[in-house]
């Protein structure tokens, strides 16, 4: 007897395909939803059934709660998996599913609501003994308050505008001597920028790492973590390379952070899968940031080292089963890295790229996994987040995982839109990355003056083009095909025998 009759996947692209694969493993039929922009998308055809839910604008399709509930009703689904993004952390949607007696494969609406309120959840976690970045919660007219908080937090500290953002009204202060002038300067700047001179002080973290813990909790009172993911390599404040284990954690620190993550889960009354995010500073102090009440983009690296299928666990937990025995005893085995393949120009400030995928090819081999939402002929439109795929590798050591990733990225081919594979390969090859010294501003720090031109080898590209052109001429007798190949012509995988003997 299957856990659910049928599951609707309220998402698109690679994560929808990923969830459908887990459903298939469990013998549960799936329903895709798709917008106008996704008429030809992979996720639509990966499902057993699909329902059109409206125009390309997310508001009128993937974010439209009523349309998604209706699609679930008309197709006879008794559960909905939200993936990540879109409605995945929307407590109103979670409540609506409950009212409609459809299982929402996520935490309870109450937990989503609590953890969605960053101020309230941090206060609740703080009273449960979870460490927060020390600092003031609100502005004060009294400089003595700033002094006291700064002394307690320890220098350096940062002054931030309460109304703020964009660096305005922000000042890093390295000693008590500079504090008074910095507070006044920040007030003036904040007043000019936001019309409000409220500023507060908190501890400034030098080169922090982004470390998160995967948590699982079931409705039988079991709560556990599945170790960490290090997600410090970011561009545009968005992760692009993640790995596990983190080079920064000793067994003691891992244990302490893991226990804290479980405390967070229990304090929130959490069920299902989630992620507890921390910042870790250079001296090994960690601070709770927030909980993502959903599956993470980078969940596959945890799956690689633990052998757990997180989506299968999510579905089982949502159906009322306890966390699997094999998951409860999971350990960290080897090292895993994920590189996100976005449609973006790695050589031009990660500028998004759109267009048609003219050619698509995935690498394969032991320890290589590709989660993809595209195939040849797919359109990358400007309507959605431009993630196309994720390449995940697993190897016995970090060094081998880095080498395997370089090979996997070189064998991963997507033509027609730009990508940042080369940039990511250069990050993996950087001596500081090899040493494991990663932090959230790694790219700004080490790649500010990147010059790709030095590595361009146009003659190799011409050699391949010349042979391709000759081959086309030989087959078609013309200058080469100008038509797009269909997926059927290009989906077949090559596996062996491409080296010249």
């Amino acid at each position, binding site marked *: 007897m299957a856990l659910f009759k049928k599951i609707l996947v309220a998402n698109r692209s690679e994560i929808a395909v990923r969830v459908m694969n887990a459903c298939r493993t469990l013998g549960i039929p799936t329903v895709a939803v798709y917008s106008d922009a996704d008429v030809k998308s992979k996720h639509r055809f990966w499902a057993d059934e699909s329902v059109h839910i409206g125009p390309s604008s997310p508001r009128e399709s993937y974010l439209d709660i009523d349309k998604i509930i209706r699609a679930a009703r008309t197709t006879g689904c008794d559960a909905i998996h939200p993936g990540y993004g879109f409605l995945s952390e929307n407590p109103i949607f979670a409540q609506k599913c409950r009212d409609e007696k459809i299982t929402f494969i996520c935490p309870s609406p109450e937990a989503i609501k609590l953890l969605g309120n960053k101020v309230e959840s941090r206060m609740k976690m703080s009273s449960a003994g979870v460490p927060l970045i020390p600092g003031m919660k609100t502005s004060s007219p009294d400089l003595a308050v700033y002094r006291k908080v700064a002394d307690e937090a320890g220098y350096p500290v940062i002054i931030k505008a309460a109304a703020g953002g964009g660096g305005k009204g922000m000042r890093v202060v390295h000693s008590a001597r500079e504090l008074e002038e910095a507070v006044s300067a920040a007030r003036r700047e904040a007043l000019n920028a936001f019309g409000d001179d409220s500023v507060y002080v908190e501890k400034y973290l030098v080169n922090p790492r982004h470390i998160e813990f995967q948590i699982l909790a079931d409705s039988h009172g079991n709560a556990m973590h599945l170790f960490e993911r290090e997600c410090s390599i970011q561009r545009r404040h968005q992760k692009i390379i993640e790995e596990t284990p983190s080079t920064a954690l000793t067994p003691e620190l891992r244990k302490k952070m893991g226990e804290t993550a479980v405390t967070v889960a229990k304090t929130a009354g959490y069920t299902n899968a989630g992620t507890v995010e921390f910042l870790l500073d250079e001296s090994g102090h960690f601070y709770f940031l927030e909980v993502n009440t959903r599956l993470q983009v980078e969940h596959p690296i945890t799956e690689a080292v633990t052998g757990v299928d997180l989506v299968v666990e999510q579905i089982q937990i949502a159906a009322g089963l306890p966390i699997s025995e094999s998951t409860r005893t999971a350990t960290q085995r080897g090292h895993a890295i994920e590189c996100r393949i976005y449609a973006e120009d790695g050589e031009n400030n990660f500028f998004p790229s759109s267009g048609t995928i003219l050619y698509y090819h995935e690498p394969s081999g032991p320890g290589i996994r590709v989660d993809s939402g595209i195939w040849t002929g797919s359109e990358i439109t400007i309507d959605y987040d431009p993630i196309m795929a994720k390449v995940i590798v697993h190897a016995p050591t970090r060094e081998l995982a880095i080498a395997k990733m370089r090979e996997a990225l070189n064998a991963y081919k997507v033509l027609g839109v730009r990508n940042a594979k080369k940039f990511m390969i250069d990050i993996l090859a950087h001596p500081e990355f090899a040493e494991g010294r990663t932090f959230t501003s790694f790219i700004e720090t080490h790649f500010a003056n990147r010059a790709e031109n030095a590595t361009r080898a146009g003659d190799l*590209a011409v050699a391949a083009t010349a042979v391709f052109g000759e081959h086309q001429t030989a087959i078609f007798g013309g200058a080469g095909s100008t038509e797009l190949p269909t997926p059927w012509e290009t989906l077949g995988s090559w596996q062996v025998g491409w080296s010249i003997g």
Partner: protein
Amino acid sequence: MAGGMVNRVKQTDYIVDAITHTARTEKHEEVWRVTIGDKTFELIQVSQHLFSIRNGASQSLAAVIRHKDTYFVDVDSVLYEVRQATDIAVSGSHGDHSGEKDKIFAPMPGKVVKILVSVGDEIVEKQPLVIVEAMKMENQINARARGRVKTIHFNAGDQVGTDLPIIELDVVE
């Protein structure tokens, strides 16, 4: 490869990164040999669009596809756009404005968020000129040459395509 039959020898000019390469192509049994300048590469076709290239002691996997008159190529994760030299004289614009440093285009359709310069401004290479929003993200477009702002065709809030320039410059070479 000694004794292999040479099917055919052909010479073609290709342009990539604004450099013309003359490629001499011949096939010995199943192996292609391409000579460019003083280098010779050995290639074997893996599938319709995939080629294994031997370059001295190193091996690369290349993917190639042709769309209109451009060959899109990935070798070792570096992306190239290659054209046959004879195609270039007869071809028009295909939305590739990479040669026009005096015109600032949006690389994809989007919305102008902010124009960062005014007509008459002296600008330096890499100076941010305009911010365009597409795919939920704000993207800054920088000058690719030194010069002066000549005309600005759009205002903040306007939708832009990729066919009309947002800003035109008088470039100082």
